[in-house]
C-alpha cells in the first residue's frame, strides 16, 4: 500500500499553470523530497495534499484512502510550515498540543505526549514560552513537534529548515532522518537546498514549472540528470557546460576546442556530429600542467578557497569560464597557464537543442584501433 499517491494533479492560479498533471507514488515510510527552484509549484503541491489549497483536477490517496474531497482536518496529516505558522496567542505547549486536543486526547496522556516529543526535540525547557519569545531554532522545533505530535501517517514538511541559521540547519540535516525513521511516517519534504534534498530523501522529485521533471534517488539525479536544468540545480559550484560538436574519426572520438583536439574515450552514438553540451562537474576536473596530452588548455584566473574545497576559475582560449574544485589544502602545479584533464566517462552529454541528456545505455564506445 502506498503512503501517498497522487494522480493527475493540476492547479491554475490566475491563468498561470502552477501544477501540471502531477502524478507520483510514495511508499509507506518513505521520505520523498520535493525539490525545485522557487515558483516550481512545490509548496502548492504540498498544500493540495494537506487540503489547504483545492486542486482543479486530480486525485489524492493517503494510505489507500481517496482524500480528494476530505477536509484538511480529516486527512490525518501533520504539517510543518516554512514560516513556522505557530499560533501566536498560544504558548509552545499549547501549540504542540493542538493536534492532540483536536483528537480529544485524555489530559494526562496529552501532557505526557507533548513533553515526550518536546524532550526529543530539546525544547522541553521552553514549553511555557510564547512563540515570540522563542529563537528561530526553537520555533522551528516547536513547529516540527506540533506536526509530529499526533503521530500522523503522513508528514508534510515545507522547507522547515529554511529560516534557521546555517549551523542549526546543518545539525538538523544530520538528525532529522533518525528522528523521522523512528516514527514510521511517510514524509514529503519540500526544500530548495540540493544538499538537503540529497541528504534527506529516499527519493527526490524534481519539479520544474509545475511538472515533475525527474524522480529518483540522489544518485540517479546527481549522476544521470535528465536535462541541463536539473544538472545545474545539483552541485556547488554549478556544473560546467561546454558547447562542442564531438566527432569520430579513425583515431577515435574527439572534439575540437580552439585548434586543439581533445580525445574522448567515450561518446554516445547519438552525439556524433551533433551540437552537444558537455556537462562536467567541477570536482571531475583535475588541474595539470599545460603540456599534458589531452588536457583542456586554460588560463587560471582566480583561486577561491571555500571551506572544504578550493575552487579554481579558468578560461579556455575561446573565453569559456570553467570551474574546477579540489579538496582544500592540496596544491596545484603550474602557474597561470595550465590544463584541465577529465575522465570522459564522467561527462554528461546533453543535446544542445533540447537540453535533454543523451542516453548512455545504448552508447557505442569508440576506440582507436
Amino acid at each position, binding site marked *: 500500500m502506498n503512503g501517498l499517491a497522487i494522480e493527475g494533479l493540476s492547479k491554475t492560479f490566475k491563468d498561470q499553470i502552477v501544477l501540471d498533471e502531477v502524478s507520483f507514488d510514495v511508499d509507506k515510510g518513505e521520505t520523498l523530497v520535493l525539490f525545485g527552484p522557487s515558483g516550481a509549484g512545490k509548496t502548492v503541491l504540498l498544500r493540495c495534499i494537506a487540503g489547504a489549497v483545492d486542486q482543479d483536477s486530480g486525485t489524492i490517496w493517503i494510505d489507500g484512502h481517496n482524500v480528494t474531497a476530505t477536509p484538511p482536518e480529516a486527512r490525518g496529516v501533520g504539517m510543518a510550515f516554512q514560516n513556522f*505558522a505557530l499560533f501566536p496567542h498560544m504558548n509552545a505547549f499549547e501549540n504542540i498540543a*493542538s493536534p492532540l486536543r483536536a*483528537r480529544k486526547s485524555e489530559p494526562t496522556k496529552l501532557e505526557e505526549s507533548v513533553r515526550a516529543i518536546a524532550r526529543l526535540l530539546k525544547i522541553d525547557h521552553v514549553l511555557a514560552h510564547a512563540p515570540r519569545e522563542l529563537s528561530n531554532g526553537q520555533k522551528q522545533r516547536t513547529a516540527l513537534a506540533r506536526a509530529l505530535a499526533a503521530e500522523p501517517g503522513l508528514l508534510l514538511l515545507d522547507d522547515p529548515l529554511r529560516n534557521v541559521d546555517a549551523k542549526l540547519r546543518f545539525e538538523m540535516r544530520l538528525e532529522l532522518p533518525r528522528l523521522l525513521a523512528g516514527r514510521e511516517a511517510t514524509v514529503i519534504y519540500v526544500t530548495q537546498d540540493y544538499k538537503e534534498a540529497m541528504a534527506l530523501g529516499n527519493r527526490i522529485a524534481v519539479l520544474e514549472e509545475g511538472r515533475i521533471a525527474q524522480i529518483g534517488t540522489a544518485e540517479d539525479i546527481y549522476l544521470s540528470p535528465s536535462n541541463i536544468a536539473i544538472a545545474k540545480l545539483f552541485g556547488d559550484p554549478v556544473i560546467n557546460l561546454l558547447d562542442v560538436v564531438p566527432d569520430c574519426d579513425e583515431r577515435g572520438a574527439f572534439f575540437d576546442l580552439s585548434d586543439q583536439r581533445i580525445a574522448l574515450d567515450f561518446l554516445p552514438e547519438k552525439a556524433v556530429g551533433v551540437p552537444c553540451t558537455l556537462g562536467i562537474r567541477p570536482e571531475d576536473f583535475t588541474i595539470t600542467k599545460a603540456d599534458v596530452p589531452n588536457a583542456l588548455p586554460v588560463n587560471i584566473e582566480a583561486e577561491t578557497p571555500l571551506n572544504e574545497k578550493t575552487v579554481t576559475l579558468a578560461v579556455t582560449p575561446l573565453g569559456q569560464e570553467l570551474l574546477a574544485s579540489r579538496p582544500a589544502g592540496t596544491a596545484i602545479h603550474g602557474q597561470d597557464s595550465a590544463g584541465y584533464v577529465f575522465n570522459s566517462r564522467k561527462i554528461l552529454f546533453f543535446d544542445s537543442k533540447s537540453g535533454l541528456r543523451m542516453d548512455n545505455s545504448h552508447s557505442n564506445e569508440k576506440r582507436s584501433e
Partner: protein
Amino acid sequence: MRHHTVLETWLRGLAIAVIVLFFMFPIFWIVLMSFQTNETILRSPPSMAFVPTISNYEAIFAGRLDSNVASMDIKFLGNLGNSIILSVGSVAVALLLGVPAAYAFARHKFRGSEDIAFTLLSFRFAPPLLVLLPLTTYFQALGIADTYFGLIWVYQLICLPLILWIVRGYFEDIPADIEHAYRTAGHGWFATFRKIALPLAMPGIAAAGLLAFIFAWNNFIFALVLASADKQPVTVGALAFVTASGIQYGQIAAAVVLSIAPTLMLALYAQRYLVEGLSLGAVKG
C-alpha cells in the same frame, strides 16, 4: 540623526502652537462656558475670571430649567439615554453580522467578492437622505417607525460597512498558514474561526467597534429624519434644546459638553485602536 537650524526649530514650534490653539480652543471655551452663569457669559470684553458654577449641570440633571421668566421641563437626559441605546445596540448588531461576513470576504475569495466588498463600501458614499426618505414610508408600513429597533436597523448603514471593511483588513493580515496549520492539526473550520481568527483579529474588532460606536453616536441626519422627540439622540436633542431654552447659554454649553464628552473620553482612552481603525478603514482594502 536630524540636523535643523535654530530658525527652523522656532518656526516649527510656532506652527504647532497655532495649530493646537485653533483645534483645542473651541472645546476649551465651551467647557469654560458651561461653568458660567448667563451674566458672566454676556460680559464684554469676555474674561476668564469668574466663579465657576455647576448650576447648569444641576439644571440638566434635575430636568428643570428655571429662568427669570418661567420654568420648563427638559428631557435632555432622555436624549443621552437614547444615544447610548442606539449606539451600543447598533455596534452590537453590526459586530454580530459584520465580523463573520468580514471573515468570509477575507478568506473565501470567489468571483466578484471584491466587487461585493466595494459595493458595501459604496453604501458609505451614497447620500444618506436618498436612503432615508423612502425609508420613512416603509418604516411606517412595517410598524417599526420611531422604534429603537428600526433606528438600529438604519444605523447599520454606517456601522456595518465600517466594521466589514476594517475587520476584513485584519483577517487578511493573519497569515493563512496559521489557519492552515490549525486545520491540518485536526480542527474544523468553525473551531479555526473561533480559536485562531477571532482572537488574532481582536485588536481590529475592537478598533472597528469603537469607531462604529463613535460614528453612531455622532450621527445626526438619521435620527433627525426618522426619530420622534422621545427617541432622539443628543445630536438632534441638543439642537432642539437650543431652540427650547432660548437664551440659557450656560445650559446649552453644558448640554453640548455632556453630549461630546462620551466620544471624547472614549477617543482619549483608546486612541491607539482608534487611529489604527481610522487608517485601516480608509487606506487598506
